[in-house]
């Protein structure tokens, strides 16, 4: 029976209990846990034993939030450093180095996306954004600082009103921002030069899974020939979609939309609350990643370059990620 360092167990339960939230924070916490696990390893100083131990830690972490794409991406990124090592001490050093690299790169990613994205915005632009995305807001604020943005429309984003967070976030940076109801997107879209949104998951064909309503916003943008940019860190790209996995769209509680009393009074009305929708790649002009601007159809390039194991079908068994294979290939 393997025992894990206390701090590793704390991080795992923090992710499971959603004390650690947001794709980036979850991914960095997982990388940190792997680093701690490697440094505090007290078992046999044997390469194979160490690989087995790290694989178990990785599996523990991945199991904490089965639907968060950033989590397995971080774990695989760190553990794939075990592939080409020949001794225990080399292996431990490789894991620590790779974990630190992941943490550094993912913190840098959002900043670089802001800089790269801002270059795509022309002077005197009006931007529309949906929901709240740190990466998208980063692009808008950077472009605003460069004097390129004259107005931002932010949708209120029912049911949870994340648009109010976006409003507050942008207003604090001095960006002139106007909230609109979600139903008014097509009404204002002719005034808009760019739609900039974030992503929850990017699929291997370039389809973007994001907050419900995103696909409708991009449809209206396409109709009006308004450009659509998706700001997404590379850890949002989903390797499992490459082997045909579908991204599951979660339905959340109806009480996010209407009060419980109303639901009890109206038993024959079903309130359907899907959290995400899928924007097809043809409605997206570009995905802005920390590695550059890519057409959505080239999402597979990011998967190969950043998540190289993804193309390696041997990283899976029975359609599931298999960390044993990742570390020993």
């Amino acid at each position, binding site marked *: 029976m393997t025992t894990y360092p206390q701090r590793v167990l704390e991080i795992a339960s923090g992710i499971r209990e959603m004390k650690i939230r947001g794709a980036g924070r979850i991914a960095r916490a997982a990388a940190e846990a792997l680093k701690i696990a490697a440094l505090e390893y007290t078992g046999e100083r044997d390469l194979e034993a160490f690989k087995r131990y790290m694989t178990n830690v990785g599996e523990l972490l991945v199991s904490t939030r089965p639907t968060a794409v950033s989590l397995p991406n971080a774990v695989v990124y760190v553990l794939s450093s075990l592939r080409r090592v020949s001794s225990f001490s080399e292996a431990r050093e490789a894991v620590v180095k790779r974990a630190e690299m992941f943490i550094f790169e993912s913190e840098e990613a959002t900043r670089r996306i802001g800089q790269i994205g801002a270059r795509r915005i022309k002077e005197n632009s009006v931007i529309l954004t949906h929901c709240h995305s740190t990466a998208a807001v980063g692009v808008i604020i950077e472009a605003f600082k460069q004097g390129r943005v004259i107005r931002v429309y932010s949708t209120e984003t*029912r049911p949870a009103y994340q648009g109010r967070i976006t409003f507050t976030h942008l207003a604090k940076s001095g960006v002139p*921002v106007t909230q609109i109801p979600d139903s*008014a997107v097509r009404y204002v879209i002719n005034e808009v030069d760019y739609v900039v949104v974030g992503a929850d998951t990017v699929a291997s064909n370039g389809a973007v899974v994001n907050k*419900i309503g995103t696909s409708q916003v991009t*449809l209206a943008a396409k109709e009006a020939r308004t450009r659509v940019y998706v700001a997404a860190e590379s850890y949002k790209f989903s390797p499992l979609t490459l082997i045909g996995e579908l991204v599951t769209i979660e339905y959340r509680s109806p009480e996010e939309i209407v009060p419980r009393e109303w639901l009890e009074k109206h038993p024959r009305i079903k309130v*359907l609350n899907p959290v995400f929708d899928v924007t097809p790649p043809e409605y997206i002009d570009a995905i802005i990643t920390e590695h550059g601007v890519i057409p959505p159809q080239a999402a597979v390039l990011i998967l190969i370059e950043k998540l190289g194991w993804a193309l390696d079908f041997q990283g899976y068994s029975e359609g599931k990620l298999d960390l044993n294979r990742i570390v020993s290939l």
Partner: protein
Amino acid sequence: MFTRFTGSELAFSVLDELYSTASKGSEIEFVKRLLDLVDYVLSERPASMATINILRQVGLYITERGFSGVDKYILELKEKYQAILDRAVEVMARRITSGEVLLSNSNSLAVRKLLSLLAKQGKSIKLYVTESRPGGEGLLLAEYAENLGFDVYLIVDSAARFFMKSIDKVVVGAEAVASNGAVVSKIGTSLIALAAKEARKRVFVVAPTVKFSPETLHGELLKLPEHDWKLLVSSEEAARLPENYSARVPLYDVTPPEYIDAIVTEYGLFAPQALPLVLSLVEKSGFTIARPIEEIVSSLKRRVGV
């Protein structure tokens, strides 16, 4: 006053208001009330064509035939409006077969009448309703459909495209129809129609011809009212938002005729672009005389000396 009313509800309540004022027997009081209503509707509900057309008709009656008999005339207009709405709804009902899945927004009186007729005909349908912010009238339509015994699905406005594949037909009401066949309706309708077109689902607008805007034939643009943040957040919620919280809240949008498969009127179901033509062929309906309302207003003012 009248704020939550749909286009037809506003028209009916204005007719009731005019009737009760007319019954008091004072011409001056009646004309003043009529002028107040014209002011109110032109500033607050400038796209509510049925009401504008009715006010135009009543004003015209006074200028041409005087005060006597206006109460009877108002009752006739009301009966006529009810009749043409019912006829349009009957036409629409023929296009719907049992088992179909419909999507609607807001709380259109025409759509409610349609649902009630379908229930009477024993046609069982399923209805998706968007909550229809701002205002949230979709909840009222969902409740209405539930009481008729239909299965109802309530979704957020953002989810229309997500569910469009599960839907057979989109059916909505209208505030106004312009001379090119464009339809003014609750904000968000054009987005739903766009998503329907993308998914190759049919879009029907139930709108008796009283909703037609004769001014648009002369090139006038329909005015669409906009409100501010007060329609989006309560004052408690606003206290938690930045002080400069601002919003743009349009109440209606314009759906281009190419996204509408048919407009459904008391004269039948046809392409929205054909509406002015149909009206010119059958024009004895009396509702759509194109005398500008401003002209009628000034002769009414002269009449009562204000």
